[in-house]
């Protein structure tokens, strides 16, 4: 019999029966239809599947769903509130930090985890913060700029 797991995703509770070897990424995408977390390398390298677990960025492809029970999970779908985009989402659009978009959800969630912990990161700290997320389009310059504009709007952002 599959164990019952309570997943708290974007503030909602889901009671699910999941196979013990199911990965959080598969449950999010296939059961909950939250496809913002992308299926990428599935080896913990590319970061396309990044979600926040109790506020920390993790690879959903390298986490058992049963071990995520009772913890707070945030996906890109939970970032906008009342139809209003999160400042990071707006900044990514305004700075042109999105091209094909495949890395974008993970990139934004890693940036959110970074800014929640360190509201005024310098460029090197931003690079470190998104080092678990590969982008094959942009060369990262605009992504880093987008994150910097949000950091500066929060009153930080050392040059």
């Amino acid at each position: 019999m599959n164990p019952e797991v309570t997943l708290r995703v974007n503030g909602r509770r889901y009671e699910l029966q999941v196979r013990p070897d199911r990965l959080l990424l598969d449950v999010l995408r296939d059961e909950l239809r939250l496809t913002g977390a992308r299926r990428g390398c599935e080896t913990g390298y590319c970061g396309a599947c990044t979600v926040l677990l109790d506020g920390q960025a993790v690879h959903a492809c390298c986490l058992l769903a049963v071990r995520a029970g009772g913890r707070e999970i945030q996906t890109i779908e939970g970032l906008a509130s009342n139809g209003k985009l999160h400042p990071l989402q707006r900044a990514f659009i305004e700075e042109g930090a999105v091209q094909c978009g495949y890395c974008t959800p993970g990139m934004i969630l890693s940036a959110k985890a970074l800014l929640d912990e360190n509201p005024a990161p310098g460029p090197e700290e931003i690079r470190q913060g998104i080092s678990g997320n590969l982008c094959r389009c942009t060369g990262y310059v605009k992504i880093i700029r987008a994150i910097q504009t949000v950091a500066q709007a929060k009153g930080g952002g050392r040059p």
Partner: protein
Amino acid sequence: MRAVIEYVEPGTVEEAVGFLASHRGAAKVVAGGQSLLVLLRQRLLEPEYLLGLDRIPGMRGIAEGAGGELVIGPLTTHREIAASPLVRKGWALLAEAAEQVGSPPVRNAGTIGGNLGFPMIGADPPVALVALGARISLAGPRGTRTVAVEEFYRGYMESVLEPDEIITQVALPPQPAGTRGTYLKYRLRGIDRALVAVAVTLTPDGRGSCKEIRIGLGGVRPAPVRALQAEAILRRARLTEETISRAAQAAVEEVEPVSDLSGSAEYRKKLVKVFVTRALRQLAAGGSGVGRVHES
């Protein structure tokens, strides 16, 4: 493909090793899952049971033992080790190595126990653990035992950890007063494991020579090693260009790197010489007491 039948969460170490013993070969321990779950997906491992250790008390956390040693639970994440003021105070080299593991998501989920339990070539923490003289405690149905980290590894992806044993703690002795350390890592991309990693701890004798020195090397043999010949050249000697050069050459002769997509064995040998030399020069110049990482 065989499906995993059950995720089991024992409440005690005895229960855990009892389960592993009675399901020998069919059960696998999952810590942070950063290596295990990849191997499961690639069908390189097909366990019927997954064993989680989260409910066992004392498996996660960092504390100072009665003898002044640093005691780390196996489920402690790399992030927790890198951020720990206690680790930074007396064993900063380990914090520096933990900070170099993979990327933030890997450090947030990955654990020191999992890193040891799945020995990958070029992993960061074991190299620092070698230089810091760490000991690993293992519990099994026949009781508990403690092994030095350099004796923990057997070869490629192999350790002395039996299928019915679990890692219960990693302990680091207090470092003698004045001990300095450095951790250097060379890799191609920021999130890679090390092509070559060097960790050194050096205790001066107060008269300009080394009282004690330990050199850990990673990425250069199937398992992390201690460069004993290089250490012997430097022990009770002064760090000069001449002794540094001899020690670095000795280190090269102690390694048997593998060739893979990231670099040939010959290239890795050259890197050993360069990075052992750099590490020792840094320490000769004073060093900061913490490690530093070389970016490619």
